[in-house]
């Protein structure tokens, strides 16, 4: 039981890192990873919203009708983002200014909505909070890794502190959007290589759990759907397994 909770918390860090494995939240990642301070602030703010929204959505999961679940999630997430925004504006004005529009854009960060839809609406409060925390920390970790590389090599500084011996060897493109994509791609490749699952996960292993189109699709599992598309029959063992998961 304890191990299960720990695995929920830890899987967001590397194995299911929202940025580098699930490739969610790319826009704020690229925009806010030019400096370590901005990345740290964005990561903390997103984690806070993620934990709170996951918990609330988990509490309300049996009350929220399926037809209006997405508007409900958005209202909850937007509420928490506004709360974080107001608190930062009041008590951390410098960070608030630094984050600019990206703070408000946490509302549409797909990691948060994605975790609400994929996890929080099917699990209890504690698990949802742990998932939110794990995913938030994973997001923070990815942002920090990217920001460190981009700021140190692109700007010759770390968290605003100048690194004198790098002053003459800056790579300015790293602070620009193309550099961001470059670092992003390299980090994804590294995580893909060292992560527990090498290469792309086979489609047949995905269950319908968390798939927003599950109710419309009408299939038992993605494996069944894939086989039908390919013109063959679904693998009986896989279908059975997926049924069990569902």
């Amino acid at each position, binding site marked *: 039981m304890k191990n299960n909770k720990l695995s929920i918390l830890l899987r967001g860090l590397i194995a299911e890192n929202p940025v580098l494995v699930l490739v969610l939240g790319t826009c704020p990642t690229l925009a806010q990873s030019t400096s370590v301070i901005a990345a740290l602030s964005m990561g903390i703010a997103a984690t806070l919203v993620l934990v709170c929204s996951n918990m609330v959505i988990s509490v*309300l999961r049996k009350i929220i009708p399926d*037809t*209006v679940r997405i508007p409900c999630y958005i*209202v*909850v997430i937007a*509420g928490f983002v506004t709360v974080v925004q*107001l608190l930062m504006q*009041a008590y951390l004005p410098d960070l608030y200014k630094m984050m600019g529009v990206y703070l408000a854009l946490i509302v549409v960060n797909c990691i948060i909505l994605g975790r609400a839809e994929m996890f929080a609406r099917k699990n209890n409060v504690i698990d949802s909070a742990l998932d939110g925390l794990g995913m938030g920390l994973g997001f923070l970790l990815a942002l920090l890794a990217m920001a460190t590389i981009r700021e140190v090599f692109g700007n010759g500084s770390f968290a605003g502190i100048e690194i004198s011996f790098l002053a003459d060897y800056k790579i300015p493109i790293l602070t620009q959007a193309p550099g961001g994509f470059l670092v992003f791609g390299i980090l994804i490749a590294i995580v893909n290589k060292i992560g527990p699952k090498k290469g792309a996960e086979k489609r047949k292993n995905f269950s319908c759990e968390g798939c927003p189109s599950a109710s419309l699709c009408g299939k038992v599992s993605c494996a069944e759907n894939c086989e039908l598309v390919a013109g063959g029959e679904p693998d009986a063992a896989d279908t059975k397994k997926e049924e069990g998961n569902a």
Partner: protein
Amino acid sequence: MKNMINKKNLMPVIVLGVICLAVALLMGAVNMIAAPEIKARNDKAIADSLGKVMPDGEFDEKEDALRKDAPETISKVYTEKTGKGTVVVLVTKKGYTGKDIGITVGIDNDGKITGMEITQNDESIVPSELKPGGSYGEHYVGKGAGDVAELVTGATVAFTESAIKGALTDAFVYLGFAEEKPELPRDEAEIFELVKAFYGEGAENLVSYTAEDATYVKRIYKEKGKASYVTYSFVYSQYGTPEFEFLTYVDESRKVADIEKILWKVSDPKPEWGYIPPSDSEVDAFFESFVGKTVSNVSEVEIETGATNTAGRVRDAARESLEITIPEDGSYASRIIGIAAVVLAVGGFIAYAIIDKRRRTAK
């Protein structure tokens, strides 16, 4: 209708409504805690920035509503609560590269500057005193609208300084301490007479057009049916840099056939800058070198040492004269034909629709 209002349809509405209400209450509660802190910070920030240019001034967080006639350089105006004067926040783009230069200036009730600060300077070449927080504003303390024009600051970036002085003049004009300068230095009739004298034969047939989307070329004069034309160019640099006016005769092959200087107003020589303006003969020779130039080689004209910025602008103005779009003589006729064609097309379509409908009804 009754079937539609059942539990299944009502529940989502109620749940969403309740969640919205709960979230609104949460935001309201947080706002109650955060709002005083935010207001205090904003007040302090405004007092800090405005207080620098009007010491001991008290200001509202909200700026005054701008009048409709406000020059585009004025972005915000704050009236001091106790009646000490007004603080004007200006943004000008009239520097050398056209990038933003932000200025905050305090002007008291006698029209004197109480303080001036550069808050932003995105120009490419910026001496330290003209950078945000620099000492440049000190030159202006105690100066009025007229003094600003004559002020010699020692700053060596003429365009930036000119832009700043222009923006400050806008602030004085807005507050009623100076009169707005006219768009052109002389009236239309006078310009037309100068053009006629310059044009020679056929001058009585000239028609005047306002140049659209041009920086320096203000008027275009041409005879109907002819491809050649004359442009009147003017740069009104409010202060600091010289003013100039000239006429350019562009022939059918878009080549400068003739050019005439009307005004070349050079600033007073400033020995302390080591500034020596070019002589009259040098200026005449400079203008003469434009004759025969086309768009492709007008940039080969060498600019005058001693009036680098002004000569550069003359060259830009000459290029603009060569590139400018000339209004077509038959523009009205073509517009009428165009409108008639559209009316006919729409009318034809409507008529067809009516006839078609009647035919169907008859069937």
